[in-house]
């Protein structure tokens, strides 16, 4: 079963096709096009609100950066709009040299203040190993929650009310809700069972943090939703204007993320992350379906890229060939339901999270996924 418009298929959970053979993800994309039309006025209005909220403060907004093209372009956009930004990078120690150089280049060129939140490597690697040994599909969960906590921490340190997100549904797409799950209790449970070090300092976003930061009134809008965001144009623009460097593919700026998205998910779980991206590009008219299908026939990573990534992962995490083979064996598989999580708490607190989603204090997708259980 596959969508006739994009390249979503059975590997996407709950792939509901309509009478025309078009999937629910395409319909969501169309809904989002209506909700977030390309509009200079709306972008200016958002910039105005952000700048207004930053009066008498050193910064108007926090922007999380990775050295990738979306967050780098968002910095440029903020600069053009006159938003005074504090750039924050959550550094889990797996960044590529290109990503580091890109962050240094763009922040200096635009005169943007920057903080690199480098967390304890022993704890990060212990979390990564714990998730790999648990055979779950959420081996990136700790990174995502660590990133969010660092962004909120930076925002509250300065009393900043806006965290601008560099996501673009027109080029990155919307990952299927069933592909990943994350919450602080889940991560602690998995780590308690399989971790190799004590979690003493890791910035893990817990339920209390989520509620606390939500009540603080920090908003997390996505400015790239309001522009005609073209992936190829942005890449060329950044390369030409700022000496920014392309790292070879979406999410390849971080070795662990590249491993997780393009090797672990594909080989163990059967998820091809490119389908999300290509589907989004098809829906927004930046790629045609035939080209996407042809590209999907190509290997995700080149032999050299794969060898480099695997050798770094095995070496740094101390995984021998047998252990790694066991981790990658699709037979060994567990889900979040095998571990204690906050799911019951999210459901009990549904009205609170609904109100927070309505006031843009948490992303709509969080409410839909964790509270409503879509």
């Amino acid at each position: 079963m596959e969508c006739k418009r994009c390249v979503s298929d059975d590997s996407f959970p709950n792939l509901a096709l309509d009478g025309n053979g078009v999937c629910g993800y395409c319909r969501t994309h169309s809904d989002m096009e209506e909700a977030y039309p390309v509009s200079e006025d709306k972008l200016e209005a958002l910039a105005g609100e952000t700048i207004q909220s930053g009066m008498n403060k050193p910064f108007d907004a926090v922007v999380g950066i990775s050295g990738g093209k979306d967050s780098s372009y968002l910095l440029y956009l903020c600069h053009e709009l006159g938003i005074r930004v504090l750039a924050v990078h959550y550094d889990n120690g797996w960044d590529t040299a290109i990503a580091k150089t890109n962050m240094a280049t763009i922040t200096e060129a635009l005169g943007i203040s920057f903080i690199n939140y480098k967390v304890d490597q022993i704890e990060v690697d212990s979390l990564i190993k714990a998730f790999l040994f648990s055979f779950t599909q959420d081996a990136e969960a700790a990174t995502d929650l660590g990133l969010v906590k660092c962004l909120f921490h930076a925002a509250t340190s300065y009393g900043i009310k806006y965290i601008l997100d560099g996501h673009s549904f027109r080029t990155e797409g919307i990952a299927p809700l069933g592909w990943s799950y994350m919450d602080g209790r889940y991560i602690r449970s998995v780590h308690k069972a399989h971790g190799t070090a004590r979690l003493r300092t890791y910035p893990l976003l817990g339920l209390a943090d989520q509620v606390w930061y939500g009540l603080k009134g920090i908003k997390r809008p996505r400015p790239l939703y309001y522009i005609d965001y073209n992936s190829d144009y942005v890449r060329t623009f950044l390369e030409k204007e700022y000496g920014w460097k392309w790292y070879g593919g979406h999410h390849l700026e971080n070795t662990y993320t590249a491993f997780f998205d393009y090797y672990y998910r594909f080989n163990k779980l059967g998820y091809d992350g490119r389908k999300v991206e290509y589907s989004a590009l098809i829906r927004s008219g930046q790629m045609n379906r035939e080209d996407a299908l042809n590209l999907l026939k190509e290997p995700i990573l080149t032999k050299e890229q794969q060898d480099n990534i695997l050798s770094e992962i095995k070496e740094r995490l101390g995984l021998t060939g047998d252990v790694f083979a066991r981790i990658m064996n699709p037979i060994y598989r567990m889900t979040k339901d095998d571990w204690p999580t906050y799911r019951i708490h999210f459901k009990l607190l549904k009205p609170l999270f609904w109100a927070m989603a309505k006031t843009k204090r948490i992303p709509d997708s969080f409410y839909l996924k964790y509270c409503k259980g879509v």
Partner: protein
Amino acid sequence: MADQVNTKWIYPPNFDGTFPVDTPCGHKRYTVNFGCFSDGTGEEDVTKIRRSDLLSIEGTVPKSLVIEKIEYDVSGMTVLIDWSSNTDDRIAVLNASTGIMDFAALGGLHINDTNPGDDPEWGSIIFNTTTDTFGSSDIDEPLDAPDPGSSYNITFTVRAKS
């Protein structure tokens, strides 16, 4: 001509940046203030906190430093703060602004590199206000030179990790 710079160790008391030889008087946390009043010259790759100077109670060099807090007031210039390491990991870019970043609740800022050996300079904290020599380095472009009269006042709280 050169910038007027000064370093003031706030904690431990009576500490001047290095322990007297054979004196086992190490501390775990250090607070140090750096001031600069620029004549437009700027600083290039200046080691501000040298890891190998901060001896533990046993007189050993800490494995690494962890930054717990940065309080800053920068005016008229940009201060690039890096770890001294193989890759010159960036800690922060401070433009003209004032702020307090307390990282203690998040476990502090760590260095993203492993010590290749006994390099005493590794893991130290360095400042740049003129030229950026980041990493391996594709970026070697001069920053805007500090304006004459520009200044910074930056206080670090660091933890020595043994």
